[in-house]
């Protein structure tokens, strides 16, 4: 009933073993670089490398096709629009650039656990913490709570939809969404009380100590790993 909550595909390929921070940095640099380049002679090989990287992940073909169809329909529409409104050369440049980025990004997404990506993002956010704009612990809490609430909200949505349908209100989004939002707001009080009672998030000192060495990943809080959120 509940949708699967991660795009990660388990495996032991080169990309699976590469550190998440390297993969994300490489992707970011490649993304910036490819927007600066317009020559198909450079973008073509880039797209080829990205395709090889994606194939090296050894995702089951059917799954791969499912991931790629949606984006490539959009890409095809973009290419057609570029041919019609501008020139064939622009269409080739844009098509190559976007497919290279798309394939590379998918390769990283498929080979990196959600928890690893969140760890990297948390490390990137940490310097911002000094400016008092960002609270990395609060971000971590919000992420784990959101992962826990998505199936919950999904469940409630269907509950309300069935109840409304029984009373002949099936077509009205207002009748559907008002009770959903009100129920969620009401439960916020109880959930916050429960979180406070468990003294989460832990004090800053211990957090920094356990998060220091990158290879030994700190244990993720409940609900944060993909597996737990799926159940």
């Amino acid at each position, binding site marked *: 009933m509940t949708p699967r909550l991660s*795009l990660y595909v388990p495996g032991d390929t080169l990309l699976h073993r590469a550190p998440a921070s390297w993969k994300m940095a490489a992707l970011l640099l490649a993304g910036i670089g490819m927007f600066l380049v317009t020559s198909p002679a450079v973008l073509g090989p880039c797209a080829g490398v990205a395709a090889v990287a994606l194939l090296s992940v050894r995702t089951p073909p059917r799954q791969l096709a499912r991931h790629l169809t949606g984006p490539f329909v959009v890409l095809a529409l*973009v290419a057609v629009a*570029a041919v019609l409104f501008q020139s064939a050369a622009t269409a080739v440049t844009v098509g190559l650039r976007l497919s290279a980025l798309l394939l590379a990004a998918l390769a990283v997404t498929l080979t990196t656990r959600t928890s690893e990506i969140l760890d990297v993002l948390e490390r990137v956010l940490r310097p911002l913490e000094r400016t008092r704009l960002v609270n990395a612990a609060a971000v971590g809490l919000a992420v784990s709570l959101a992962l826990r609430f998505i199936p919950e909200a999904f469940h409630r949505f269907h509950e309300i939809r069935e109840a409304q349908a029984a009373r002949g209100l099936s077509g009205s989004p207002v009748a559907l969404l008002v009770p959903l939002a009100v129920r969620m707001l009401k439960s*916020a009080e109880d959930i916050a009380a429960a979180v406070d009672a468990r003294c989460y998030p832990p004090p800053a000192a211990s957090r920094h100590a356990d998060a220091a060495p990158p290879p030994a990943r700190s244990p993720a809080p409940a609900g944060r790993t993909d597996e737990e959120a799926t159940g």
Partner: protein
Amino acid sequence: MMNAHTARGRTARRRMETKDVVLIALFSAIIVVLGLVPPVDLGVAGVPITLQTLGVMLAGAVLGPVRGALACALVVLLTIAGLPVLAGGRGGFGVIPGPTGGYLLGWIPGAFVTGLLVTVLATRPRSRLARQAATVVACLVGGILVVYALGVPWTSVSTGLSLRQSTVTALYFLPGDAFKAVVAGLVAHNVRQAYPIERR
């Protein structure tokens, strides 16, 4: 009682209370779920409509500018983290540089402006109808104008289409989004009547 006390004690140290974090997470979950459920038939012919952007406007209008924007930022974070949280099960880094990446990032200022306008416009008028109308206007401006202001130029950069052509593409989605803004305004107004929470 104990909870209220400890919560206030925490505010002194960190500006965000646990309840705010919970509300942000709850609304980001609503936004995600509105993208996962099969689209409700809204009767606008030919335009594929999911309710996801409705959740964005709702977050701003119900939670207020700061928390609403943070709820959207959380959805963006989950997207980048590789979770299929966007409509149609999309997710991953690839979304950001793609043609629709600007719309996704535009949600954050969009929810902020929606919340700001609701605070400014919809809390003063005496008549119920005026407050309702003001909430709808806030959703239209924040959820459409602001989101498109980021989304359209982004599409243009990402795809090489000219600004004018990107605008034409966006117009295709305008009727559906306008309808959603009206629904979001009505929902937000009803929610705030049924369960008022303090705004920030």
